[in-house]
């Protein structure tokens, strides 16, 4: 059963395998964003307490972001092994840091000074102020960063197919370039699913942000 160049029969026969690769793709993306958030939160706190670190930190994450992913895999493989999740995640996390750190810092900087002064004056501890005032108010900008980082990472995960992982990238690259009549079908399936995952994740995060920040949508009265 074919539809133009697409072999639907192959898709149906390989649904389990495609599902597994989709799951792998989601897991690789999720780990990268999760670890990226933890590291960038730590970096943002560092910058908040020592603003002069902003330049160096953003430059360093910018350099990481600029390294071609293939080169990074090649550099890491002797250290962390070929085709290991560790190798893949070091690269994937590196690429999230610029966007996540920058948005987290900008989000915290955008918290109105009067809200911070009021919080101090009313007796918030530093931690209470961060968790109950600053982070909630920084949330829209932080989530905007997470959305960009997620969409970017979903795309990048496919590249890890070159070191033997790849999630949907395995469909696109490994199976897609193998001999056999279903190669094009596998590639198209992988691309469509990867784009779909990115789009759904983007919309889901936007929805989450709106659910978490109902205050940001109400219009100003004055």
């Amino acid at each position: 059963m074919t539809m133009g160049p697409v072999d639907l029969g192959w898709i149906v026969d390989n649904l389990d395998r495609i599902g597994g690769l989709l799951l792998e793709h989601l897991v690789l993306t999720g780990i990268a964003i999760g670890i990226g958030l933890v590291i960038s939160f730590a970096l943002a706190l560092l910058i908040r307490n020592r603003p002069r670190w902003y330049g160096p930190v953003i430059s360093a994450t910018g350099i990481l972001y600029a390294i071609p992913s293939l080169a990074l895999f090649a550099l890491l493989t002797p250290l962390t092994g070929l085709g290991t999740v560790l190798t893949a995640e070091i690269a994937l996390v590196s690429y999230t840091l610029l966007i996540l750190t920058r948005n987290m810092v900008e989000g915290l900087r955008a918290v109105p000074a009067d809200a911070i002064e009021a919080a101090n004056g009313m007796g918030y501890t530093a931690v209470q102020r961060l968790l109950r005032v600053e982070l909630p108010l920084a949330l829209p900008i932080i989530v905007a960063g997470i959305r960009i980082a997620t969409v970017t990472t979903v795309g990048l995960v496919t590249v890890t197919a070159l070191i033997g992982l790849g999630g949907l990238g395995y469909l696109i690259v490994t199976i897609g370039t193998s001999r056999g009549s279903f190669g094009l079908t596998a590639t198209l399936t992988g691309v469509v699913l990867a784009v779909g995952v990115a789009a759904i994740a983007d919309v889901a995060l936007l929805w989450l942000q709106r659910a978490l920040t109902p205050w940001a949508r109400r219009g100003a009265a004055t």
Partner: protein
Amino acid sequence: MQDASGAVVAFEHVTKRYPGTDAPAVDDLTLSVPAGEICVLVGPSGCGKTTTMKMVNRLIEPTGGRITIDGQDVTQLPAVELRRRIGYVIQQVGLFPHLTIGANVAVVPSLLRWGRERTAQRTDELLELVGLAPGEYRDRYPTELSGGERQRVGVARALAADPPVMLMDEPFGAVDPIRRERLQNEFLRLQEQVRKTIIFVTHDVDEAIKMGDRIAILQRGGILAQYDTPAAILANPATEFVERFVGADRGLKRLSLARVRDLDPIAPVVVRAGEDRADVRRRLDRSDELEYALLVDGENRPLGWIDQHDLRGDGPIDPEAATPGAPTVEPESTLRDALSAMLGSSVQLGVVVDAGGRVLGLVSVDAIGDRLRAPVRGADGRLHDVGEDLAASA
């Protein structure tokens, strides 16, 4: 009026010197604010008024001296605990945009881990107190409110845990003059009920005179130039700086501190249409002060003035001859407003009327002048002659 729920706030030789500066921001400040009174810190920029206020809740730590609240040194408590016991209102209000109005008011109770029910009850009570219907406002967000409404929420939030002391940093500075006037009046009425000890910072001397039970005038370098009641400062500025700071119109400013009801009213010669001229003439002659009789209608409401000229000859009074336009003032009017009304009329007398417009008595420009020359009660509780300090220094 309730008993004062406030506490005595005392500054003892308090000095603040910022690192890297020669001149202190606050220099050996000693003053005591009685429980339940509003003490306004006022002065030009750089006079240390905000620094002084922020040392009370230790947003700024003094370099020397000590500050006590009801005798307890503020440094004896951890700073965050101290701040939860002191209300704090700032110019930009500083409501948390991500919290509803109710949650904003409940901020300090939640830091103090009050129960849900007690917090909810207190929140509604406070919104009611500042004139915002809880049902309508509780679940709205700060961006949905006007500037004046937000400022009222700021005051409610500061009162939430019923603190004995409130710090207010130019609280009405960011609203337009008309709303400011209304917020000031509302706040004074509120203070009648809650009777907190309030340290109020402003750069506006008129606001200081209006809001303060006492005013501390600070000059550059954090030097206390004068600390007294508004009336005493206006009557007897301690230094040339104070005299310049309060303005050349300080006599008029004193008039806005006193009200018509504070004066002894003058009994008018009241006449109605149709009364006999000769009779009115005799009554007017008996009065030393008055040259005019007041024509009123059947409801005792003023219609105009009758002078000697109108009373010549015999027969009934002709209401058409009366000079219309007697300026009316209410017992609650300030002497400043009364004077202003009277100066605009040809007969320089004001008619004091009740809410129904009926005549209660008269005030004269002379009586207001006498009032300005009468002794003034100072913060020491004694009466001081007007100009006594200036005379001593001259």
